[in-house]
């Protein structure tokens, strides 16, 4: 239950008081129908390939997750202890719904699934992520991605 007003303290206050950035502009990119979209997953769960560098701090860096990765090779090194990990342990799709995306692609509901996906570590100050995120946009275009699905944890 992620309803803030039902969370126990001190978690409720911690989350309620987290500083959030405010933006003066509101970007909006129109696109083609869903059935033509090529979709990349972007997680903030601190996911990484097994053997890649664990997340060590809140520095705004990200890890690349190849589209052909198997569940056994995707692990989580998010630094926070304040969210459930047992669901991810049972089923990676709960956090990283790659199998579900492939099903939608094979049924023609979405166009295709990207060759690369990405993970940041949430709880990082968004300002730290800005530079990496803007560079990431170029990488996504290189992969012909025209929709990013962002999944928190």
């Amino acid at each position, binding site marked *: 239950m992620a309803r803030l007003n039902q969370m126990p303290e*001190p978690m409720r206050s911690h989350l309620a008081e987290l500083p*959030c950035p405010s933006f003066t502009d509101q970007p909006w*990119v129109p696109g083609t129908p869903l059935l033509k979209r090529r979709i990349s997953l972007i997680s903030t769960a601190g996911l990484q390939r097994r053997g890649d560098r664990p997340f060590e701090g809140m520095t705004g860096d990200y890890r690349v997750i190849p589209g052909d990765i198997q569940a056994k090779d995707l692990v989580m090194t998010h630094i926070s202890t304040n969210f459930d990990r047992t669901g991810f342990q049972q089923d990676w799709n*709960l*956090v990283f719904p790659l199998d579900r995306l492939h099903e939608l692609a094979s049924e023609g509901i979405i166009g295709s699934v990207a060759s690369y996906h990405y993970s940041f570590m949430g709880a990082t100050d968004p300002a730290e992520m800005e530079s990496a995120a803007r560079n990431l946009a170029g990488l996504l275009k290189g992969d012909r991605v025209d929709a990013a699905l962002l999944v928190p944890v």
Partner: protein
Amino acid sequence: MGALAHYLESKGIPTTQISLIREHTEFIRPPRALWVPFELGRPLGVPENPAFQRRVLLKALELLEAPEGPLLVDFPEEAPENAVGSDKPMESWSCPVSFASESRQETDLEKLRSAFDREVAELLPWYDLSMEKHGRTAVVEFEPRSSSELLGAFGTDGQPVTPKADISLATALRLAAQDLKAFYFEAVSARPGSAPPSSGEFDEWFWQETAAARILKAVQERCLKSGDKSLKMTGAMFLIPMDQR
């Protein structure tokens, strides 16, 4: 999460997102967001339920076809089971391994260490079974024997040997603590005929019943007393959940 969407969209990538904390998303106003009423750590709602996950995914993706925004839409369903705060009774799951009751009364560090070592030894066969069955583990850097050795030694004032040359002791302790919990969850979920515990059931058992939790609290104490800044921060924030401190 909302800020990332803003940055990507402003560079020409259409985005849609799942939101877990509605208040944050209301403030940041990313282009398209689906708020879901699920537990933190479970953005698609429930494990091993592809039909439910698919409904969440489709709702989030359909926002890409909206003509204008920003959009913040609420997902209409609750997670069907095992959610914290659901009506499911907590006593429906019990740990398949019962630890000697006297071990809970340990007061000195040596006794705590031996209780911890016994606990790990009892759980290891279940972990091995889980690996055989699923071919997957959430353990990342420290296999059960090395996480328990590192945490057991550090928590009981021994001299820990960091098994990885390329990571600091503070990072090693944090990763080992997560790996230890992952090992415990997989081990207790592996008993034949026993469904995995819900997140709440597992937390209740792990933090209230196990020597592992007492070792982690001892590790935390030693970190907090340390003069090393990164150990201090690890102890303060990255070993024990806020609701268990």
